[in-house]
């Protein structure tokens, strides 16, 4: 008997395996529970794959999406529905970056402790987005059917006030799209990257300020072109003798080509990386598309072009917004957020990253200031335009990026109009219209 009963201790092995297996399950439950519970077949919170739980509002509590009689409904106004489509999402779940999909677990009110039901047994949560539907409507009107992106953020907190992507549609009457070539479902603000063009001179300027000690006493000679071997870098105007600061204001290609050649590809790549422009960033937990910076060989036109935002450079609009906001915020980039924080959590500081020393930010801020404000009534605006050549016979992308320093309105903005022509002529008025609404 003793022999046999001693052997029964081997049962502990089986028990240990079972307990370990259960422990492993519990760990998985807490790690993956949220994604399991938010699967569209969880009938407690979904009906035929549509989330039937939770309400989405903008920062002023305008209802953007709701549930009525077990069905998903959207904002009352068609203009609002179209303007906030990519931020909120659609019924079918085609908009991958929409709050209805990204914040499904928050809308359900899911947490692994109480499950899909709240403590009281009710289903569904309200989430407040940081966006302002008024800005969205104005931005979409200003884009006037052109494809592009309008983003506005509060650079002190990182809250996104506006994130319009065009083209768009009314989620109540979704179009039949077989093959989404245009990218209607795409949230261009997060999921696209564009050639930056002249706005990239800001990055090269930051590198020059920190790496070329006599940068302010330098003068350059712009003859309208710079010959590098067999290639030529051109400048739209002949600026003659020109310094670094004025080179930014008139957007002289020759000044920044020379700086790029002097700084070299390695330094430029470091700055692209440090400023988060060559990689990805996150916006309210969503990872954006990646930018691109390729190191060109020294002394070539490619290197010169890469310093003025051409060559193979690509930038994601949200990453650009983060960077430009950091200049306004004395060098510190706030992480961009889409969910308004409430209660206890609003006391905690937002997460932020210092991109550059305060001195660099102040210098950049000075040279970016727009002195001629007749096109921006009432705005203390700092900005840079960009007209990014995209090759072929297509019109260039129009960019306008910057920020305003009006008291109480610390807003950074990015406007892109795809194949929209000159940045100052086309993108700047859009920025102005949206900022005017933001100031009200």
């Amino acid at each position, binding site marked *: *008997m*003793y*022999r*046999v*009963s*001693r*052997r*029964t*201790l*081997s*049962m*502990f092995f*089986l*028990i240990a*395996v*079972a*307990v370990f*297996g*259960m422990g*492993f*399950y*519990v760990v*998985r*439950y807490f790690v*993956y*529970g*949220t994604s*399991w*519970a938010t*699967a569209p*077949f*969880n*009938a*407690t*919170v979904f009906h035929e794959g549509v989330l039937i739980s939770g309400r989405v509002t903008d920062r002023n509590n305008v209802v953007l999406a709701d549930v009525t009689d077990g069905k998903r409904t959207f904002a009352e106004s068609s203009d609002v529905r179209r303007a906030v489509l990519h931020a909120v999402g659609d019924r079918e779940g085609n908009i991958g970056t929409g709050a209805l999909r990204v914040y499904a*677990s*928050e809308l359900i*009110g*899911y*947490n*692994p*402790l*109480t*499950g*899909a*039901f*709240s*403590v*009281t*047994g*009710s289903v569904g*949560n309200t989430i407040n987005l940081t966006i302002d539907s008024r800005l969205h409507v104005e931005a979409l009107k200003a884009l006037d059917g052109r494809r592009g992106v309008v983003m506005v953020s509060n650079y002190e907190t990182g809250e996104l006030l506006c994130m319009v992507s065009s083209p768009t549609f009314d989620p109540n009457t979704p179009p039949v799209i077989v093959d989404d070539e245009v990218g209607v479902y795409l949230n261009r603000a997060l999921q696209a990257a564009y050639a930056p063009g002249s706005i990239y001179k800001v990055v090269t300027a930051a590198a020059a300020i920190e790496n070329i000690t006599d940068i302010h006493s330098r003068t350059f000679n712009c003859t309208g072109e710079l010959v590098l071997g067999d290639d030529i870098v051109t400048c739209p105007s002949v600026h003659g003798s020109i310094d670094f600061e004025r080179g930014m204001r008139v957007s002289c290609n020759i000044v920044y080509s020379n700086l790029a050649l002097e700084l070299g590809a390695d330094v430029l790549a470091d700055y692209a990386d440090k400023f988060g422009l060559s990689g990805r960033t996150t916006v309210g937990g969503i990872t954006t598309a990646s930018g691109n910076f390729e190191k060109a060989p020294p002394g070539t036109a490619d290197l010169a072009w890469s310093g003025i935002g051409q060559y193979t450079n690509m930038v994601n609009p949200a990453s650009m917004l983060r960077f430009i906001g950091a200049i306004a915020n004395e060098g510190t980039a706030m992480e961009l957020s889409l969910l308004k924080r409430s*209660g*206890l*959590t609003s006391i905690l500081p937002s997460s932020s990253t210092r991109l550059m020393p305060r001195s660099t930010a102040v210098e950049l801020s000075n040279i970016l200031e727009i002195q001629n404000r007749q096109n921006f009534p009432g705005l203390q605006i700092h900005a840079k335009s960009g007209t990014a050549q995209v090759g072929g016979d297509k019109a260039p992308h129009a960019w306008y990026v910057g920020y305003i320093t009006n008291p109480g309105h610390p807003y950074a903005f990015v406007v892109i109009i795809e194949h929209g022509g000159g940045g100052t002529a086309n993108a700047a008025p859009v920025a102005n219209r949206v900022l005017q609404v933001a100031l009200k």
Partner: protein
Amino acid sequence: MEWFRSFINSIQETFAGFDGNYLIFATMIIRYILPVLAVIIVMRCIKSLLREKSEGEIWAQLQMENGTFIDLNYWENAIGRSRASDIYVDFPTVSRKHAAVIRDDKGNWQIYDIQSKKGVLVNGVRVKDEAGLEIKTGDIIDLGGITFVFIAADRTDEYEQAVSRTKPGKLFKQHITLAYLTMFQMLLAAQFYVSQGSSASLLIPFYFIALSMLMWACFFANRVLGRVAFEIETIGFFLTTIGMSVASTSVPSELVKYLIFIILGICFYYSMGWFLRDLDRIKKFRRPIAIIGPLMLVFTRLFGERVHGAIRWINIPGIGITFQPSEFVKIAVIFAGAATLERLFARRNLFAFIGLMGACMGLLALMTDFGSALIFFVVFLVIAFLRSGDFATIFLSIAGAGFAGLVALSSMPHIAGRFATWGRAWEFADTRGWQQTRAMSAAASGGLFGIGAGNGWFNRIFAADSDLVFGVVSEELGLLLALIMVSAIVILALYSIHASSSARSSFYTIAACATAAVMVFQMMLNVLGSMDILPFTGVTFPFVSMGGTSLVASWGMLAFFKAVDTRQNASFAVKMPKRPTRAGGGAIIYKGQEYIPDDVPQDTIKLDPKYWESDKD
């Protein structure tokens, strides 16, 4: 920390969300009370099972030449120079496994020569290998030159022992645990009643009340039999209650059938317990049972229905009941495999058992019942190890089974498919991972406390209430209760280890451990299979999964645990001594006791009938 934040938010909502509907509010509270009650019930059972004092029994003694006494604490005692012997005799002429001294059901003792070199002599007569020799008090046993005087406990000894040993239920009153369980059942019934909304009927609560009454009836029946322990039954009823909750949510129209199966299960439990009382009866029927097992499988193979790839079911015509023979074959195999001590040492017996298991697993493979074959394999491993203690055999077996498994994988596409999906259910969410992904989603949706009995959607998924029952329980009653349900099975296994050292015969020990292994393994395959941690094999969770055969078999297997419970007056599956015919004296000499001549008058012992059993048995 995102979820912690939302948890804080939802607590803030608790009071804001209260809309004045007291009924809804009450059932909401029930969600939190149920796991607490379940913890109390299970904790009381485990503490009572493992903590209560249980003095060893003394069935006989050996008096050595120097006058000291050695107690024989079991019905089966191995004597030898091996430290693993029950009676360890460190003397060079004694063999490692020398002799076995074994008591039968009627109190007669036999001595067997196991593997001795010098032989066993009783009063100078040599014991032949297999047959053994009956011994009586006063016989002189010679083991390789060492002599002992054998003293068997007589009825008076057994009676006195019964009176002096501690009865269970002192630390944890069994009826209080049962009262908690009753509360658990009633709250569950209330939750079901409310969850039906405006169309609420009292039908489901009625079945819970019926189950509760059945439970108390069993409790009082045990009392009438003079048996006081009820922990094993309480665990059985606890799991059955969760099973009834699953039935109520998934097949409310079949609750009548379910209740009948519970009654059948309990009847089977008591019959099994009664059968297990008598070791002689077990020995007599073991061979027929061993033969019936594979025959049942052959019958199923020939006449069974193929359902979802496997032939498991026999349709009983006329009454529309299907029946899964492999559930009972499991019990038959445990019967056949568990052996009394004298059989353990003969290799031939082990080979017969290996043959039997091979036949069963082969038949199950032919029926493509992969899950059952796996369970049989685990039974085989556990029994083979308990019998032989030989790791080499075990490793060889596992290697062999691994090879057989590979052959099965390559020849049966639906099994290979299950392995292909294993661990990647979400990639196949709309094909082979359909069931598991739904189960995981439902389980996560339930949170720690569930969305309330009767509120779930997962029960509508195919096989949710059997193969994926963990999902149903997690969704409606929450992760905590699902884990408590798992721990109830683990407790039975722990108890089988704990009680193994006090069981009277190795038959009971092996049977209890094999049963525990079956239950733990099934539980593991069921839970981890449905949650995509193991391949999904479609095995039932004991007591909880729907399916009458599985339920009845689970209750039957429970009797094996009851048969190792040798605490005084604990188990109806363990016999108590016969009425003492002769008072006074007694042959056994306890430690510190002086020898008293056998002349104490009859009336000095107050006889209490609680401690003996009628002679009818």
